[in-house]
């Protein structure tokens, strides 16, 4: 029983990453792919949580920015013949710029209006991806070659897995530290009450834009890692269901909890794969699981952990019994 005392967000995180690090030794090709996908989603979910969970900004562009990052990587790699080492970071920065550009008009909106505006924007960009044949190759998408990890390891699957693992770890570590700093407290202040935040001198525009920028950067990076993993970049991979899955990961994990995002990402990828057994009933099972999780753990997994584990401390988590938080 005393071991429970040692379970903190940090120790759990180390264990999780430790397990993920040795996964390739045990996993067959299928599970290795699933593991790799999970790591990509960890990066995405952490970024989305920054927006929705920590800053309270209901922005649902993460799915399409994920796509922008993937497409940008593909175009840099295939059309401009850049190596992946250049293409992926460039794509991430490009996505961040797009995210900031969108953030500017979005700053004026909040709550449901922001949500709907970002959903509309995402669908619009999806339309562009589908129709801009000269650049995006339209519905057939862009096929991308695998990454060559030659001096390190000779299988693409292993090499890419470890790259994504390292990136995910760094992202999580960076974000935790970012949130521990005054930035984190500023984000939460914005979430809890914009008026109060402004009154203590927090520049809303600056911090909100930063939140958008960072989550866009993460999404672009995730897209860059996703493109060679799948081998093909097509518009339908980034439709509304993409951001819905990410949203589910954030909410099920717990708003305002990085550990929750990691757990949510792992949990939902694993859930989607294990629901394959349901064949046609997958959607019923998925919707049902989401509902059950919400009904029993309305605050997400992190709230549940907080209740059961004495050492689980996450001060910036979004509390459950909020009086109306929508402005």
């Amino acid at each position: 029983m005393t071991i429970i005392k040692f379970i903190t967000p940090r120790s759990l995180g180390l264990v999780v990453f430790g397990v993920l690090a040795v996964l390739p030794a045990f996993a067959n090709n299928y599970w290795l792919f699933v593991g790799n996908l999970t790591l990509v989603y960890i990066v995405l979910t952490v970024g989305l949580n920054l927006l929705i969970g920590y800053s309270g900004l209901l922005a649902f562009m993460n799915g399409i920015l994920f796509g922008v990052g993937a497409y940008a990587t593909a175009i840099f790699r295939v059309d401009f013949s850049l190596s992946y080492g250049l293409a992926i970071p460039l794509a991430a920065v490009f996505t961040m710029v797009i995210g900031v550009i969108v953030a500017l008009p979005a700053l004026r909106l909040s709550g449901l209006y922001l949500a709907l505006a970002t959903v509309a924007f995402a669908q619009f960009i999806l339309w562009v991806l589908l129709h801009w044949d000269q650049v995006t190759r339209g519905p057939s998408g862009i096929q991308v070659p695998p990454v060559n990890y030659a001096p390190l390891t000779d299988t693409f699957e292993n090499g890419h897995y470890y790259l994504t693992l390292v990136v995910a770890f760094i992202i999580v570590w960076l974000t935790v530290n970012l949130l521990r700093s005054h930035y984190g407290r500023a984000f939460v202040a914005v979430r809890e009450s914009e008026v109060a935040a402004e009154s203590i001198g927090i520049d809303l525009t600056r911090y909100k834009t930063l939140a958008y920028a960072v989550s866009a950067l993460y999404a672009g990076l995730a897209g860059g890692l996703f493109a060679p993993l799948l081998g093909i970049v097509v518009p339908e991979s980034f439709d509304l269901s993409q951001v819905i899955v990410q949203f589910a990961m954030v909410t099920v994990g717990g708003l305002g909890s990085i550990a929750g995002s990691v757990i949510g990402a792992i949990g939902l990828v694993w859930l989607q794969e294990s629901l394959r057994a349901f064949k046609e009933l997958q959607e019923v099972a998925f919707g049902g699981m989401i509902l059950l999780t919400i009904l029993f753990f309305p605050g997400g997994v992190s709230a549940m952990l907080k209740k059961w584990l004495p050492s689980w401390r996450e001060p910036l988590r979004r509390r459950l019994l909020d009086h109306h938080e929508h402005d």
Partner: protein
Amino acid sequence: MLPYLLTSGLTSGALYALVAIGLVVVYRSTGHINFAHGEFFMIGGFFAYSMITMLGFPYLLSLVLAVPLSFCLGAVCDRAVFRPLMKAPGTTIVLATVGLSYLLKGVGRYVWGGKGEYISIKSIVDPAPFLVWGMPVLPQQLIVFGAAMLCMLGFFAFFRWTIAGKMMQATAESAFASYLAGIRVERVYTLTWGVGAAVAGVAAVLMAPLTLLTPDIGSGLLIKAFAATILGGLGSMSGALVGGLLVGLCESLIGGYIDSSLQEVAAFIIIMIVLVFRPSGLFGAYGVRRA
């Protein structure tokens, strides 16, 4: 060409308006958007289909019965999903309704799938087109148009003059104050969800001959309904109607005059433009829920 485009824009717009009205009813009373509204629509239509083909009920009776069945569906979902979550943050409720929409869509696919690309329900009247002021219109489209107007007027009267309607507005304004005033808020919510679903059922039954039912029809219509409510102003019933008609018109004109490929994205462009420049829409007031 213009009059044809206008007519077809108005008739499609009436479809969107009818779906949007149901969405607004729930929002007006609970302050939440039901992301499963499109699926209520879909299941309502399938209820009617099942009664016609599987149970062999007479056609009109099936259409009429689909409405109370949809009401029950809405009420059940309220008890099962919404009521336990009344105190949860807004994002959680959003996700809950999204999860519900997946669930309902999957159920729809399982129960009514395998029957064909789409399920068709015959028109109430002979579907041959006839002329209205020289423009060819399908009779079913006129019925939908008329129904949208009737719904709007009906709800207007309901909110203005009935006690139930006033209770629903009260709960929207402040659930806490409504408790204090002795209003059984949970009951009002259940009623609201039931009514919202029933409206979706009515819409489905009237629109099915035009839109051809598939389990996936909900999401596409929901987005158009959003565009309609945003354009008209969130929370405004008349806004939903006018907004719906305008969305239909814009789609038709953009598709006809600029490029046919733009037709499906017109709704999103509308949402973005309205929200950036005039978030309150045409009739709504930003942040305030009003008649």
